[in-house]
């Protein structure tokens, strides 16, 4: 069967193996940095939005944050990628950074809403208890609210990271070529496909790589959830 022949061919040809490996590592690296950007940005935006409810001084930052989440959640990420790579940061040699920034900022918009929802889901009595003991709102947030909110948002953040990992496959749309830092797993599979004139085997290999990472990551999230919820089982 040609499918198995193709698999063997890819596995035994050093060039193809390198494509897969390089694409896979690039996909992981881009996702990883974008996740970090997304988490940091999302956290800041969520905090601004939460505090803006009671603090009038944050009205302008809050408006900016709302604009940001609306725009980045309201437009296709593929389009954002084009704008980032070919318009905003159309600087030679900057392509990979533009890509990472785009995914990071896009992810931040979703993460911020997840974190905000997580903070809002913590009983308001917790904040009241903290402030009525004389703790500031920020300190109560840090010591009491956020630790509880993190538990609530871990599943949603996990989903967001999985979605982001798979979304990076659209990098190939902006032309990722062998040997560059934007050469991702999806592009590796297409490059091999064209070389051996068959799509099935390379695609399955790429799919397996995505699937394995996502699966391992899902297990990891479950493990973290389990540990975090160890102490609050209601009898």
């Amino acid at each position, binding site marked *: 069967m040609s499918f198995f022949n193709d698999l063997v061919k890819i596995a035994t040809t050093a060039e193809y193996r390198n494509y897969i490996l390089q694409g896979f590592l690039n996909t992981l690296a881009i996702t990883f940095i974008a996740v970090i950007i997304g988490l940091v940005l999302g956290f800041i935006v969520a905090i601004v939005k939460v505090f803006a409810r009671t603090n009038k001084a944050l009205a302008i930052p809050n408006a900016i944050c709302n604009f940001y989440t609306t725009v980045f959640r309201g437009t296709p990420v593929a389009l954002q990628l084009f704008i980032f790579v070919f318009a905003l940061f159309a600087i030679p040699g900057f392509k990979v950074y533009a890509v990472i920034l785009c995914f990071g900022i896009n992810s931040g918009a979703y993460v911020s809403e997840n974190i905000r929802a997580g903070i809002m889901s913590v*009983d308001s*009595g*917790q904040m*009241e*208890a*903290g*402030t*009525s*003991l*004389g*703790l*500031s709102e920020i*300190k109560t947030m840090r*010591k*009491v609210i956020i*630790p*509880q909110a993190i*538990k609530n948002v871990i599943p949603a953040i996990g989903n967001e990271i999985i979605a982001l990992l798979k979304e990076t496959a659209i990098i190939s749309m902006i032309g990722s070529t062998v040997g560059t830092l934007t050469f991702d797993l999806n592009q590796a599979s297409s490059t091999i496909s064209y070389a051996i004139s068959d799509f099935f085997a390379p695609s399955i290999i790429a799919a397996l790589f995505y699937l394995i990472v996502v699966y391992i990551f899902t297990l990891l999230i479950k493990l973290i959830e389990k540990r975090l919820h160890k*102490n*609050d*089982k*209601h*009898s």
Partner: protein
Amino acid sequence: MTNIVEIENVHKYFKNVEVLKGVSLSIKKGEKIVLIGASGSGKSTLLRCINRLEEPTYGEIYFNDKLISLVDPYEHIDFIQKSNTYKKYIDSGLSYEDAISKIKEERSLKLIKEGKEYKQAINKYISDNYMDITLARSKIGMVFQHFNLFNNLTVIENLILAPVELKLMTKEEAINKATSYLERIGLIDKKDEYPSKLSGGQQQRIAIIRSLCMNPDVMLFDEPTSALDPEMVGEVLSLMEELASSGLTMVIVTHEMAFARKIASKVVFIDSGVIQESGTPSEIFDSPKNPRLKDFLSKVI
């Protein structure tokens, strides 16, 4: 005796509904004030105004003679007299009393329009009298209906968080103090448990000693037994009774009338946002004068 808390003409609106309609109350050192009244009468709101969990719409609240609410210019005739609106009214021929009462009635003072003198007077009053609310709150204990123990912290961490974070005690001092309170209420074996593992009565007693660990000048109790199963009400009330006899100043919102009669030095009946009647437990429970109070008591006792 000195007043620990002074509530002056406090009004509170939720949207357009006036929940408190000008309440004044002083709380002296060592007093045990019990606020009674039907649900929705405004008694919990009044209690929550004392540590500004609710912001009074008008009126002023003093804690240890320091202002902890916003300044209400209508409470100070000398501020009104410095305002441009007052001068305008006087110039237009109104008498002193008429001008003042008109301004109070219309609440027509706007900070930006009343001129420098008025602004300075208010700022001076704030700098002379204002006490930061977080500082005041560290001296005003609060016990909630739903306990509100910090769910992410163990019992002992709940007790020491605020004293240590606010640098009132070292960690060792705080732990020693918390431990002695836990021993006193017989829950020392629960010190490393999380709140969700404890019964309602245990959680509430820990919430009470969490406030006590701050050495409060006054403690506020917002229906502390209303969310408890009946068999757990007793343990919480007896702890409160013990505190009362130790001389702690307490303000309690409760529906436990027998308890109110037993420990109150003053019972305050609130209905539709107004203090209708107040007095000693025997005055309130044995010879009520206000018809609404009579009606209320006939329903609850």
